[in-house]
């Protein structure tokens, strides 16, 4: 059954640890680059997981790239993209050769331009990075 995403939902975006997508702000704190929120050419939305339908462990900490690299993640309140004119759509994915099924998968859809990507990056809360254990 489709899940309706509200402004209070938290969305989880995976972020690679290597190469790092973090940079420092004027206060010396780590912040995300907008590069983490840009679309590939064939994407019709930005992939996220709905926090209410998964766990950080499942959505981030057990995830790996194809080459086995660990990832970290960022939390984004759905109210942010919604307030910027985007829609957030529950989009569960079926299992494939490369990935298991993901009931929590969702897409942020809309005109994800450079300005919007920066705003999403600024509004995100970073999860602590984890040690890669293969």
């Amino acid at each position, binding site marked *: 059954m489709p899940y309706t995403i509200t402004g209070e939902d938290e969305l989880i975006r995976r972020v*690679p640890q290597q190469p790092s997508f973090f940079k420092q702000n004027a206060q010396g704190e780590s912040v995300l680059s907008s590069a983490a929120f*840009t*679309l590939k050419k064939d994407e019709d939305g930005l*992939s996220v997981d709905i926090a209410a339908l998964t766990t950080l462990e499942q959505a981030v900490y057990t995830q790996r*790239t*194809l*080459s086995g690299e660990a990832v970290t993640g960022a939390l984004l309140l759905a109210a942010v993209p919604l307030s910027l004119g985007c829609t957030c759509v529950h989009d569960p994915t079926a299992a494939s050769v490369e990935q298991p099924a993901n009931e929590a998968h969702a897409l942020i859809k809309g005109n994800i331009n*450079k300005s919007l990507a*920066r705003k999403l990056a600024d509004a995100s809360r970073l999860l602590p990075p984890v040690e890669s254990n293969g």
Partner: protein
Amino acid sequence: MSLTIERRTVAQRDSSLAATYRQVLILQEYLPNDVDKTVVRANKLVTIRKSYGQITELVVEPRPTPSGRALLLLDRAVEKVRSFATLPVDWDSYGAPPVTETAVQQGLVLLRAPELLRLLPAHQARLAAFPRRDGGLQLDIDGGRLAIEIEVMAEGETVFTFFDADNEVQAEFNSLVEAVTWYTSSAT
């Protein structure tokens, strides 16, 4: 360009020799012709350092000056951009393609362009390089009047975008010269 040049023994500089060598190489590309001899001497002495111990080393130290900090930032960015060439498919866990060789080479050309220094703030400049999920790469420049994103697309096309404090786009250009001209003229 303001440079601090001093003589020290290699023994005093052991832990930072590698960094010094890189700085000299980078400086070589930006130094005006009239100080070229200094770099040649520095290079020669860095080569001699393999004898280690008693040899006097000529050290070119850009650190104390704002332009020196900018050169160090560029040095780091060059290394990071080079590392993008080895990223595998799916480096972001969302199926991103590798960064293209064209993008890497164009990124390195851009980082070696003397005009790029004019986009870096004189004080508290921040420069970071990131791969893009479409096979290109991105350079973020922060700390100045406007934030700047430089996108190098997978095919090598370059886009310079200036953002205000609210992350709204203020201007966009496809050439470094145009971007520098607009940025420097809009400051007055």
